[in-house]
C-alpha cells in the first residue's frame, strides 16, 4: 500500500495529537538550530535546564487550559480566569504574608473560594441564562477590581518558604523516579484490564505485540522525560501538579458520566436535555472546575513570584483560550481534549521561550503568537475538510 497525501491527511486529522507533536518538533528543531553555539558546547534551547524552564513556564497557562477546554467543549467561554487567578493569588499572598497562615490553611481557603466563585459564575450562566461571555466579561472586571482593592495596588511580599515550594520547588530525583515507575505500572495494568474486559465481552482487541510495543513507547517517553529533568534539578513541583491534573482531567473527560455529558451538552444541548440529563448542573460544575483551576494557578503564580502582585494573571485567559484552540478544541463546542490543550500551551510556551532566547523583541513575539494561533486553527479546518 502506498502512502498518499490523503492518507497522511486523514491520519493527522484523526490523530490530532500526532500533528501537534510534529509542530512542536518543528518548533524545537528550529530554535535548537538557531541557538546553536559551538563555544557554549551546543544548542542553548535543547538543554535539560531550558526544558525544565519551558515546562515551568507553561504550568500556569496549562492549569487554566485544562479546565478551559471543558468550558469551551460545553459551548461556553470564560474570560474572567486571568482576573480570578489574580484575585485568588492575591488572597493567598495576603493570608500567607500578612496573617502568617499555615500553608494548608491558605491552600484550603483559596481552593474552596475558587470552587465557590466558579460555581457562582456557572449558576449565573446555566440557571439564570446570562451568556457566559457576558458573565465572565463582568467577572474579569470585578475580580481585577477586587484584587486591586485587596492589595491596595501594591505587591504583597515576601511569601513564606512552604508556599514558595509550590511554585519553585523540585521533586528529589528518587521521588520523581518512583512516581514515574508507579505511573508506568498503572498504565500497564489499565491497558491489560481493558484488554481482559474487551475479551470477556467478545470485542475486538489489537494483537498482544502491538499492545506491548505501545506500552514500551509510553515507557520510553516517561523515562526520557524523567531522566532529562533529573539531569537538571528534578521534576518541578508545578509541572508535577500539572501532570496530575492532566491525568485526573483526562479520566474525568473520557471515563466518567460527567465528562461524557460535557461533550454531549456542547454538541447538542437540547438533545442532551431531552435525554433526561440535567444539563444546567453539568454546565455549573464545569465552571466549578474552572474556578478550582484558577485557585491552583493563583497559588502557583504567587508561589513562583514569592509575592502577590495586583497585575498577576493579566491576559492569562487569552493564553489559556488560545492554547485550547491550538490544541484542536472546537469553537462550536463538543470537541477537545485536555492533552491537546496542554500541547497547545506547550507550543505557546516554546514560542515565548525560544524567541526570548533569540532576543526577538516583545512586539514581534506577540505578532508571531497571534499568527500561529490563526494558522493553527486554519490548518485544523483545512485538514478536517470543513472549509465552506
Amino acid at each position, binding site marked *: 500500500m502506498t502512502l498518499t497525501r490523503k492518507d497522511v491527511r486523514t491520519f493527522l486529522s484523526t490523530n490530532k495529537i500526532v500533528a501537534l507533536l510534529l509542530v512542536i518538533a518543528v518548533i524545537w528543531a528550529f530554535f535548537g538550530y538557531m541557538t546553536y553555539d559551538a563555544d557554549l558546547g551546543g544548542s542553548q534551547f535543547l538543554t535539560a535546564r531550558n526544558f525544565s524552564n519551558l515546562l515551568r513556564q507553561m504550568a500556569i497557562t496549562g492549569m487554566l487550559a485544562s479546565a478551559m477546554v471543558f468550558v469551551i467543549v460545553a459551548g461556553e467561554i470564560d474570560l474572567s480566569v486571568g482576573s480570578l487567578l489574580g484575585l485568588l493569588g492575591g488572597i493567598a499572598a495576603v493570608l500567607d504574608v500578612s496573617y502568617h497562615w499555615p500553608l494548608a490553611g491558605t491552600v484550603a481557603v483559596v481552593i474552596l473560594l475558587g470552587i465557590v466563585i466558579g460555581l457562582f459564575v456557572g449558576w449565573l450562566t446555566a440557571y439564570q441564562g446570562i451568556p457566559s461571555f457576558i458573565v465572565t466579561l463582568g467577572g474579569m472586571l470585578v475580580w481585577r477590581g477586587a484584587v486591586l482593592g485587596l492589595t491596595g495596588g501594591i505587591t504583597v511580599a515576601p511569601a513564606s518558604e512552604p508556599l514558595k515550594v509550590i511554585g519553585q520547588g523540585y521533586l528529589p530525583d528518587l521521588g520523581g523516579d518512583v512516581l514515574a515507575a508507579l505511573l508506568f505500572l498503572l498504565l500497564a495494568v489499565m491497558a491489560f484490564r481493558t484488554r481482559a*474486559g474487551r475479551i470477556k465481552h467478545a470485542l475486538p482487541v489489537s494483537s498482544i505485540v502491538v499492545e506491548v510495543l505501545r506500552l514500551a513507547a509510553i515507557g520510553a517517553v516517561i523515562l526520557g522525560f524523567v531522566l532529562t529533568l533529573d539531569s537538571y534539578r528534578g521534576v518541578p513541583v508545578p509541572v508535577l501538579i500539572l501532570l496530575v491534573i492532566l491525568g485526573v482531567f483526562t479520566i474525568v473527560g473520557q471515563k466518567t458520566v460527567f465528562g461524557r455529558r460535557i461533550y454531549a451538552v456542547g454538541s*447538542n444541548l437540547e438533545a*442532551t436535555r431531552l*435525554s433526561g440529563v440535567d444539563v444546567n448542573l453539568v454546565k455549573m460544575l464545569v465552571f466549578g472546575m474552572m474556578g478550582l483551576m484558577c485557585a491552583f494557578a493563583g497559588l502557583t503564580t504567587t508561589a513562583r513570584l514569592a509575592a502577590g502582585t495586583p497585575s498577576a494573571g493579566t491576559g492569562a485567559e487569552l493564553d489559556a483560550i488560545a492554547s485550547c484552540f491550538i490544541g484542536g478544541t472546537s469553537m462550536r463546542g463538543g470537541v477537545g481534549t485536555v492533552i491537546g490543550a496542554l500541547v497547545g500551551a506547550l507550543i505557546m510556551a516554546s514560542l515565548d521561550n525560544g524567541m526570548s532566547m533569540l532576543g526577538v523583541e516583545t512586539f514581534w513575539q506577540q505578532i508571531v503568537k497571534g499568527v500561529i494561533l490563526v494558522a493553527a486553527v486554519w490548518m485544523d479546518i483545512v485538514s478536517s475538510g470543513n472549509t465552506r
Partner: protein
Amino acid sequence: MGDYLLEMRGITKEFSGVKAIDGIDLTVRPGECVGLCGENGAGKSTLMKVLSAVYPPGTWEGTILWEGKPLQARNIRETEDAGIVIIHQELMMVPHLSVAENIFLGTEPTTFAGFVDYDAMNARAAELMKQLKMPDINVALPVMAYSGGKQQLIEIAKALNKNAKLLILDEPTSALTAAETATLLELVKEFKARGMACVYISHKLEEVAEIADTVTVIRDGAHVATAPMAELTTDKIITLMVGREMKNLYPKSDHTIGEVIFEARNVTVFDTTNTTRKLVDDVSFQLRRGEILGVAGLVGAGRTELASHLFGCWKGEHRGEIFLEGRPVRVHSPRDAVRQGICMVPEDRKRHGIVPLMGVGHNITMSVLPRFTRLSLIDEEEEMAVIQAEILRMKIKTAQPLLPIASLSGGNQQKAVVGKMLLPEPKVLILDEPTRGVDVGAKYEIYKLIFELAEQGVAVLMISSELPEVLGISDRVLVMGEGRLRGDFPNTGLSQEQILAAALGKQDKVAA
C-alpha cells in the same frame, strides 16, 4: 426524442472510489411530473446535486441535456438562471427577514439610486401569494410568523419568482399537515397545466401516485425502472424500491391491552411568546398498558405541545395533572420524566434527537450512562456490550458502533434515538412523528418495534401526521384540533376521512 426538457443519461458519481450513483437515467418532458423514488441512501440527493451543479461538471460522468443542449452550469446560481430550481427538504429561509425579502433574496429589485425598491418588491410578492392562493399572507411580516407549511409555499413562491421551468421538490411535505399537503399538490397540478415540469421526490407514495405522470425508481445508486404511473401502484413502487415484496406495511400483531397505566387530566399549555394563547386547551385522556394510542391532527393542533408537557420540556406556562399507575407524578424536566418511566422520541431528530458529534453507541447509552459506572468510572466494556446488543436489536446499520451518528442515514439515526429512549425501560413511550424522513425499510422496523413494545406491556403514545400510519398502527386514535381534543375513536373501521373531519372540527359529519 428531441422533445425532452431535461435528459440525464448514464450519470455516475464516485466518492473516493465508491460509486454513489451508477449510470442513472432521468428524463423529464415539458409539463410532466416525474416522481423519483428510492430508499434513503439510494442516490436521489446525489443525483439532484449533480443536476443543480452542487457537484460541478467534471466531477461526475454522463451527459445532461437541457432543452436539447448540454447543460453548462457550474454552480447553483447558473442552474437557476437556466430555469432549474430545487426546493430542499430543509427550508432555506432567513427567519427574521420578511416574506417578500425572502422571496427576493439575491434578486432584490432596486431603485435607480441603488436602494431596495420595497414597494415593487412587496407588490410583486403579494401578487405571487395570490397566485399560490394565499392572499391572506402579509408579505411584510417576518417569515417566522408563519407555520412550516406556509413557509414551504413561500419557498415555492421564491421558485416561481425565478421563472423556473423545472421545479424539483425534495420531500416537500415531510413537515406539512394533510391539508397543507393537499394545497401543495393542487398547486403542483396547476403548474403542470401551465407547462411547468417537476421532479417530485417523496417517501409518501400516495402523493407520488396522485401527481406523478411517470415514476423513476432507483435503488443502491442504480436505475431500477421508469414507467408511467398509470401502469404502477404504490405497492409495485415499494417492491421496486426495496427489491423485495413488502405485502404488509404494518406488521400488526396481537397484543393484550391491560389496565389504565397513565392518565393526563386537564392539560393546558400556553404559548411561550403570546402567553395568553392556549396551544393545548384542557385535554384529558387515559392510556392503558400495552395500548398503542395514535394522536392525529393538523400541524398546530397542539400535539407536540401536549407531548412536551407530558415529558416536562415545555418552556412556557403549562398546567395539568399526570397520573402514572394511579399515583400523581410531578414532571418538571425530562430528567423527572425518564426517572418515572416516561420517555419521548422528539419530533425534530436533528435538533432534539441526536448529539451529532458523538458516536452512535454513546448516543444510545446517554440516558442510562450512570448504570455502567463502577467507582464513578464508566465500565466501557460493559457499555459496549449493551451498545452492540442495542444495535442488533434496532437493526442499526453502522460500520462501527462508535461512528459519529451524524454520518448515518436518517432512518438509522432515528432507530438509534428510539433505542436511546428504550434503554431506560419506559412504562410510557411517547413517539412524536417517529417515521418522519425515514425510508420504507426503516419505517417497517420501527413499526415492528412499536408492536413488540406493546406486547411487552409498554403504553405507546404515537403522534403522527401520516394518517395511513395512524390507522395502520393504533389501537385507538385521539384527534386534536386547535389545542382541543376533538375525537377519541377506537380504531375499528375508522377512516382517514373521519379523522380529518374531526380534526377540522366538523363533528356533525362523523358517522356515529
